[in-house]
């Protein structure tokens, strides 16, 4: 039993202009971030979801830090209350952006090996990847890089697939690489170093300086991967 793992929402000061809301799980982050995004106070500079936390950033012209903390805590408690509807019901569907389809050629160099690591064949892995709805949990690593989590767990094994990273990261992963690591899937917006296992390739543009917003995917968005011929 680790006493440091919070069982409920906890606030932690991040200096004089930001406060970190710590939650028990990534699932809670998704729920709470959705509620926070829907009730964001005017003047808040930034709202940054991550694996176990949501960081709220204000400044001298924004809301006071104490007010931001109170809003984070009250919203989290409401979103996580028993009976608040942990599953996504019709209310949650309202106002959502429609699902983004990402067309993938499953020709990644790690496809066969990754499938074997997970105890299935390539077609089985492709069926799993295309067979569920993914949600953007948070962004990071590079502009437009979205950490996608499967909305439903894999019933066939009863827990989320856990994909080990490459032991030696590649110095260059091409733009458009569709990859897996941990319980996440992601698409490299541009060529960069990376240690995720590459299962496919897409022509989707994840980042476009001229677009508004320039990122194709933002936290809360839902994604389906669609197989196209390699």
């Amino acid at each position: 039993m680790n006493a440091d793992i919070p069982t409920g929402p906890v606030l932690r000061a991040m200096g004089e202009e930001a406060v970190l809301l710590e939650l028990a799980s990534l699932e809670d982050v998704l729920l709470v971030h959705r509620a926070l995004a829907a009730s964001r106070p005017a003047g808040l500079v930034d709202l940054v979801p991550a694996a176990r936390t949501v960081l709220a950033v204000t400044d001298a012209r924004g809301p006071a830090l104490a007010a931001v903390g109170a809003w984070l805590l009250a919203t989290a408690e409401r979103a996580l209350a028993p009976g608040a509807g942990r599953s996504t019901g019709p209310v949650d569907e309202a106002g959502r952006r429609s699902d983004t389809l990402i067309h993938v050629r499953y020709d990644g160099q790690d496809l066969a090996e990754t499938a074997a690591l997970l105890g299935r064949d390539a077609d089985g892995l492709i069926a799993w990847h295309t067979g569920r709805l993914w949600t953007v949990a948070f962004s990071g690593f590079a502009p437009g890089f979205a950490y996608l989590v499967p909305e439903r767990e894999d019933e066939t094994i009863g827990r989320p697939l856990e994909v080990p990273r490459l032991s030696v990261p590649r110095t260059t992963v091409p733009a458009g690489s569709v990859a897996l690591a941990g319980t996440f899937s992601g698409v490299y917006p541009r060529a960069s170093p990376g240690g995720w296992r590459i299962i496919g390739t897409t022509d989707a543009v994840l980042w476009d300086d001229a677009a508004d917003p320039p990122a194709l995917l933002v936290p809360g968005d839902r994604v389906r991967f669609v197989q196209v011929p390699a």
Partner: protein
Amino acid sequence: MGGTLLVETAGPATTVQDLGRPGAAALGVGPSGALDRGALRLANRLVGNPEGRAALEVVLGPFAAVPDVDLWIAVTGAWGAITVDGRPVDGHRAVRVAAGSRLELGAATHGLRYVLAVRGGFDGPQLLGSRSTDTLAGLGPAPVVGGDRLVVLPTPRRRVPPLDIAPWTRPEAGERLIRVSPGPRRNWFDAGSLQRLVEQSWSVTADADRIGMRLDGTPLERLDPGRELPSEGMVAGAVQVPPSGLPTILAADHPVTGGYPVIAVVRAADRDLLAQLRPGQRLRFSTG
């Protein structure tokens, strides 16, 4: 017509900076912007610009450039020899540089980052409301190199303020006091480490840029060295402690999330001081 400024010598790490693009972390983009924000605002005011116009952040120098029109400029931030066609001119005031004259900033003798503002501000494509170069994310214009011709926006309507000289002090060379507020993971450290953070004099290493500044000193110790922190949102000024125990202070081009515990956060008002610290210079943290 604003004219252009031909850069002859850019120095090692010159970039175009304004007040950055805060609020884009959801897109995976950090704030960026001038590290010495006070110097940027002042330089813009001195030439009659709105405070957030894009200027040059010149690290150390030397730097040399020639405008093709008569151009008002102001240099703030670091302190060093500033000349126009070899004649010394003052920093921290508006100076008129005639078309074809050569503006030079010598290697900074105090502080590290000059801000060179031009009347009108530098032009360039805006991304998320900013013309800043984000050196980590690779957004905005490429760093400035010798031979670049920078486009200046048309002259603003407001006059160059009839101000003789702005009050300023040159960046100090000695140990600087940097005020910090509590960080979210200070409970990852024992009382002795929290004490060591503020009691010792830290040395700024050469590993310091727009992304972060690594410090050297007596390492801090985590209570549980094997414990991993899931990545969480970061802010400029966050004092992260990696496994080495030697802190890194994040700067404007920081990654939007990080996985090292943050023991303290530099107060917003003192971040400008960090921008002017030179490798080897010392700093002391204060919780006051």
